[in-house]
C-alpha cells in the first residue's frame, strides 16, 4: 500500500517522503557465483530501511552495489530521480552517499578529529594551491568545516577522545567514530553495514539511539544491515529480507515477521 503513495507520516510522527533510491532488477555475479539475483527495492526519503537475511544472503554485496564498490552485471540504480551510470565509489560518495564498513575501515594513524574531518572532504571546495598557501578562503573553509565536525563529535559523545589516534580506541568507540565520519559528510543517504555487530547490550542501545537521532535531527535517510532482530524491528520503517541472493520479503517489520518465507529462511524448513 505504502509503495503507491508519495509520502506518509509514521506512528512516531516522522514524515517519510518519496522514493530516493531505487534498485531495479539488480543481478551481481562473481564468476559463476550469483551473489544477488534480480532484486528490486526502493529506499524512501527520510526512512530507516533495514536489509536482513542469513549469512551469505548477499546483504553486504547489495550495500556495496549502492555505494559503488561493486558494479552489477544487470539492473539499474536510480538515485534521486536519475539513472546512475557505472560510477567509482569516490564519485558515489560525492553524490551524497556515505557508508560504514562491517570490519571498520578507519584511518588508524590519524586522530579522531582528523578522521571525522576526512568526512568533510567532499564538501570542501578550495583547490590545492589555495590550500597550500593557507590563504583567506581556504582558511575560512577549514574553520567552517571544523565547526560542523565539532557538532557531530558532540552529537556522538566522543569529545573526550577527540585527539586520540583511532588505532588505540576500543572496538565500540571505533564503530562510533566511523559513524561520525560518515555523518560529517552530511549525506543524503547513509549506509550502515552491521553497525552493532560485536557490541554488548549497552553499546547497542547507545548506537540505536544515535541512529534514530541522526535520522530524526538531520533527516538522514538510512539503509542498514543488522543481524539483531530486536534492533531491526525497533529501528526500521521497512525491511528487505534476502536469502541466497534473492529477495524473499519486503515490508514493515510486522509484515516481514509474519511472512512464511522469511520464517522458513531463518528457522529452516523440513523437506519431506
Amino acid at each position: 500500500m505504502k509503495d503507491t503513495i508519495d509520502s506518509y507520516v509514521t506512528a512516531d510522527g516522522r514524515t517519510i517522503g518519496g522514493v530516493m533510491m531505487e534498485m531495479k532488477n539488480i543481478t551481481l555475479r562473481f564468476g559463476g557465483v550469483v551473489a544477488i539475483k534480480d532484486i528490486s527495492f526502493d529506499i524512501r526519503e527520510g526512512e530507516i530501511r533495514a536489509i536482513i537475511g542469513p549469512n551469505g544472503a548477499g546483504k553486504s554485496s547489495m550495500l556495496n552495489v549502492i555505494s559503488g564498490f561493486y558494479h552489477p552485471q544487470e539492473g539499474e540504480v536510480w538515485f534521486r530521480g536519475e539513472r546512475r551510470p557505472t560510477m567509482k565509489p569516490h564519485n558515489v560518495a560525492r553524490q551524497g552517499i556515505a557508508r560504514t564498513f562491517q570490519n571498520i575501515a578507519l584511518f588508524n594513524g590519524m586522530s579522531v578529529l582528523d578522521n571525522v574531518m576526512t568526512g568533510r572532504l567532499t564538501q570542501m571546495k578550495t583547490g590545492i594551491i589555495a590550500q597550500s598557501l593557507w590563504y583567506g578562503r581556504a582558511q575560512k573553509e577549514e574553520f567552517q568545516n571544523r565547526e560542523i565536525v565539532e557538532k557531530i563529535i558532540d552529537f556522538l559523545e566522543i569529545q573526550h577522545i577527540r585527539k586520540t589516534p583511532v588505532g588505540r580506541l576500543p572496538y565500540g568507540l571505533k564503530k562510533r567514530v566511523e559513524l561520525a565520519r560518515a555523518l560529517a559528510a552530511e549525506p543524503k543517504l547513509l549506509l550502515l553495514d552491521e553497525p552493532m555487530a560485536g557490541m554488548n547490550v549497552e553499546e547497542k542501545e547507545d548506537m540505536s539511539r544515535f541512529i534514530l537521532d541522526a535520522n530524526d535531527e538531520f533527516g538522514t535517510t538510512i539503509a542498514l544491515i543488522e543481524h539483531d532482530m530486536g534492533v531491526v524491528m525497533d529501528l526500521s520503517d521497512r525491511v528487505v529480507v534476502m536469502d541466497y541472493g534473492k529477495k524473499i520479503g519486503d515490508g514493515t517489520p510486522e509484515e516481514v515477521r509474519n511472512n512464511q518465507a522469511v520464517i522458513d529462511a531463518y528457522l529452516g524448513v523440513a523437506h519431506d
Partner: protein
Amino acid sequence: MPDQFLFAIEVMINGLMAGVLYALVALGFVLIFKSSGIFNYAQGVFALFAALTLVGLQEGQIPFSHLINAIFGTHIHHFGWHIHSVIAIAMTVAVMVLLAILVERYILRHLVNQPDIILFMATIGLAYFMEGFGDLMWGSEIKTLDIGLPQGGSFWIEENTAWLGGENFYGFFIDRLDIVAAIVAAILVLALTLFSQYTKQGRALRAVADDHQAALSVGISLRYIWVLVWAIAGIVALVAGIMWGSKSGVQFSLSLIALKALPVLMLGGFTSIPGAIVGGLIIGVGEKLFEFTIGAPFLGGATENWFAYVLALLFLVFRPQGLFGDKIIERV
C-alpha cells in the same frame, strides 16, 4: 681545546651536512612508499632527470638534439638563449608534475591491486627508461649545474672559529653549499609537514596512506592522490638533484644516490618522514666519524663506501622496522 677533538667536531658537522643530502633523497622514497606501498626504485633517476632538465632549460639546450642531428644530418644543439634559474626551476617543477601524471596514467593505473613486487619491478623498468630517455633528451656528457648557490668553504666560519684551537687549527671548514642544503631541507620538511597536517589534500593523502577502501568511501580519488604524491616526490627529487648536482656535477652517477638512500630508510623506517631525516643524519655522521676514528687509521680508509650498509644490516637484524617505522606485528 685539543686539535684532535676539534677535527672530530668538524668531521661530525660535515657528516651532518652530508646526511641532509641523504635525507633529501630518502624523503622522496618515504612519500611514495607511505601513500601507495610502492618502493620507487626510480627515485634516484628522478633526481638525475630533474637536474638534467634544469641544466638543459637553463642553458637553452635543444631537447633530443643528438637524435635530430643523427636523423636529419643537422648540427643543432642550443637555442642560443639562457633562462634565468628561477624560471628554469619553475619549468622543471612543471615537467616533474607532468611526469607524475604520465606515470599514473600509463603505469600505476594499469597495475592497481597488483602485488607490491610487480609495482616494484615496474619502477625498476621506469628507472631504466628514464635514464635512457634523459640521456637521449639532454645528452650524456657531464654538466655543471650552477643556479647561483654559494659554493666553497665559509671564510666567516673559519675565521671566527680559529681561536678555538692551537697553531695547527685554522677554524672549521664548512662548505656553504652544504649549509644552504641544510636550510632548504629544513624548509622542505617543515612545508611538507604543514601541508599534510593542515590542508584537506594533506589529510586526504594521509587517509589514502592508511586505508584505501575507507578513503574511497569518503570521496577521495585515489588517482588524484597518486598524481599528487608522485608530483611531490618529483619536486623533492628536483631539490635533491639541485643540491647533489651543484656539488658534484650532473652525471649518471647521480642516479646512484638512490642506493645511499636505502640504508637511510632501513635505519629510519620506510614510512616515517622524521625517520628519513634522522636516518640520513645518523648515516652521514656515522660514516664520516667512523672513517675519521677507525677507518682511516686502522682499516686503510675508504670505509665510507660500506659503513652505511653494515649499519643497515645491523638494524635489519635487531630492529627490522627501523627507528620510527610501523611496528611489524605478526598475527597468528
